[in-house]
């Protein structure tokens, strides 16, 4: 059985999914890649937007989410913690 993701893990999954797509991704794609429902994603995106980890970019009818420098720095810190954990042979 897979363990429930923490709130923090979900934020990381959202940011990583944006980062993997050259730092810019449509909302529907985030839903799919971060494995979330539309309504749940709304709540998480509100927080990420208010904290400045991502910003909204509207092009015509489409809305994109762009990873900010703050978001990139945060993911960099997470990757460092991941490396420490994996050096001990415990997956992150």
């Amino acid at each position, binding site marked *: 059985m897979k363990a429930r993701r923490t709130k923090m893990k979900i934020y990381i999954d959202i940011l990583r999914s944006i980062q993997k797509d050259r730092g810019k991704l449509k909302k529907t794609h985030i839903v799919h890649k971060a494995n979330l429902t539309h309504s749940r994603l709304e709540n998480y995106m509100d927080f990420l937007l208010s904290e400045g980890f991502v910003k909204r970019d509207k092009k015509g009818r489409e809305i994109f989410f762009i990873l900010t420098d703050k978001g990139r720095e945060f993911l960099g810190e997470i990757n460092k*913690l991941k490396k*420490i954990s994996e050096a*001990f*042979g415990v997956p*992150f």
Partner: protein
Amino acid sequence: MHILIPVWFHGFDSIMYFISSIIGFILSFYFYKIYSISNEKRHLYLYLGFLFLSMGLLILSITNLFSYIALSNCRNSCLLGITDNVFSFEDFSYLTYFGLSLFAYVMFLFAYRIKEFKFSKFFIIGFLAYLIVISILLPFNEEPRVWHSYHEYFHLVSLIMMGFLSFRNIINYIEKKSLGSLLVMVAFFFIFLFHLFHIFSFISGWMYILAHISMMTGFSALLLMVLRVKK
């Protein structure tokens, strides 16, 4: 059995324990951060393991220094807390260090999924039995130097646990082949050597020195791993 410590080395061991405890606290801090994100029990065990190990080393560092200061104050002949048959502050501190370290190693064993091997119950029962034996025998201990008579049991139990942890980290290094996993493997192996040399510290003062150099090397490897990642 007694421990031979060269006089010129007095105080160096306290400094080494102190530095090692700081490195341990740094690692416990990182594992706390990791645990708060992942909510994984294995990270919690590593956090608690490093926290208890650091607390034990800090207590040992202070007690050791206190003993050396007391020793330098009585130049001719005097009885220190650790050399009489009264259960003193030093005896309590050393036993606290033993207890905290063993608890930390048990946490590390849990972090390495020892339950997969059905050993967890064995280790918990063994650990509790060890504590019960110590608490039963302590009041009837005829030998002076209460804590000295227990240090070899502590190092022997630690040696077995560290042997297992080193083995798991060798496997991890073979699988990952990364510098980080190499440094962690080296760290656990040198802490294993620390306990091994300590057991034979009744033979020569050099065994005691080698034990502490090994401990310092082990913790330095852990610090190097963290610094390398944080760079």
